[in-house]
């Protein structure tokens, strides 16, 4: 991953969201609240357009997007989310990411800071700032770091 530099863009990921996507994601994250599986509740009680993706599952989507790019040695240190809008069945959500910076810390760990968004029809629904550790050489493995050698 030595070619990573500020400004590097990640390949976009587009995904057609269905009711199954929403329900499966909610139950996978053990979120039983009705606005993530019951359309009548979502529309008539919550006043939303439909059931919508829940936040914990959204985090899992961002993780997948980032590690698709980094490979299995990529290790998340930190993620920050800003929620701006919901994603509903019928939406095509599109993930985009850009490398903001690349720095080695005092322990020699290489950190890639990334700005990632998920959008629907070019409107950003959630922003994610992530700090991802990546190997510096083929033998390096961020997952081997513990204690004072892991400073996320």
């Amino acid at each position, binding site marked *: 991953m030595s070619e990573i530099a500020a400004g590097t863009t990640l390949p976009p990921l587009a*995904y057609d969201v269905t009711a199954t*996507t929403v329900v*499966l*994601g909610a*139950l*996978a*994250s*053990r*979120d*039983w609240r009705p*606005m993530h599986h019951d359309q009548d509740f979502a529309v008539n009680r919550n006043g939303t357009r439909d059931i*919508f*993706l*829940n*936040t*914990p*599952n959204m*985090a*899992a*989507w*961002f*993780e*997948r997007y980032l*590690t*698709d790019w980094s490979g*299995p*040695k990529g*290790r*998340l*240190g*930190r*993620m*920050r*989310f*800003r*929620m*701006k*809008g*919901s994603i509903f069945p019928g939406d095509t959500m599109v993930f985009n990411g850009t490398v903001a910076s690349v720095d080695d810390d005092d322990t020699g760990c290489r950190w890639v800071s990334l700005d990632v968004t998920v959008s629907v029809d070019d409107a950003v629904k959630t922003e994610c700032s992530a700090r991802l550790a990546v190997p510096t050489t083929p033998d390096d*493995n961020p*997952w081997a770091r*513990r204690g004072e050698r*892991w400073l*996320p």
Partner: protein
Amino acid sequence: MSEHRSGAEERSSDGQRTAVHSGAAAEGGGPLGTVPDDVIALIDVVQYEETAGFPVERGYIWTTCSSVENGNPLFWDDAVAADITDGPIAPPTMLSVWFRPHNWAPGRAEPHLPLQVHFDLKDRFELPEAVMTDNTIVFYEPVRPGDVITTCQKLKSVSEPKTTKLGTGRFWVIDVEYRNQRGELVGVESYTGFGYRRSEA
């Protein structure tokens, strides 16, 4: 926790940072003069410590990976997991999943709400509405199948009253810490909430 969709802003209309750390409060006379002593006394105090009702399990790891089509071999190929992570681990972003209780369990007392401190503050300040404006997760030791995770909540800061386009209320920051059965920190979630009362039209 926080699919609140809103126009809440972290900065108030006067542009000042709204979530003020408690450190300023102890000095007295500062902008936090409006935060009551009983609330300041809660800052950095361990609250609502709770141990998960079930161990981390691979079934949920696979269900989660399937739900987002995550093909990372760390979670699907034991040889890769043995090589890179010294055995299977859970996706880091599943941190809070291990704490959501079953929808029903025999003889169970009502569990704490997730982020009970948030609801406590809404009640304390009599603020009927609330949104989460910001959520940060920091990952430490990997979570592994069989781990039993313990969590606690800590209030980190409370702001003086602020007015945003949603209404008037206060911002607060709450940390949720997660540790494994050996007491090792596995992660910290930090939430910024805004409890408020809608502005009169």
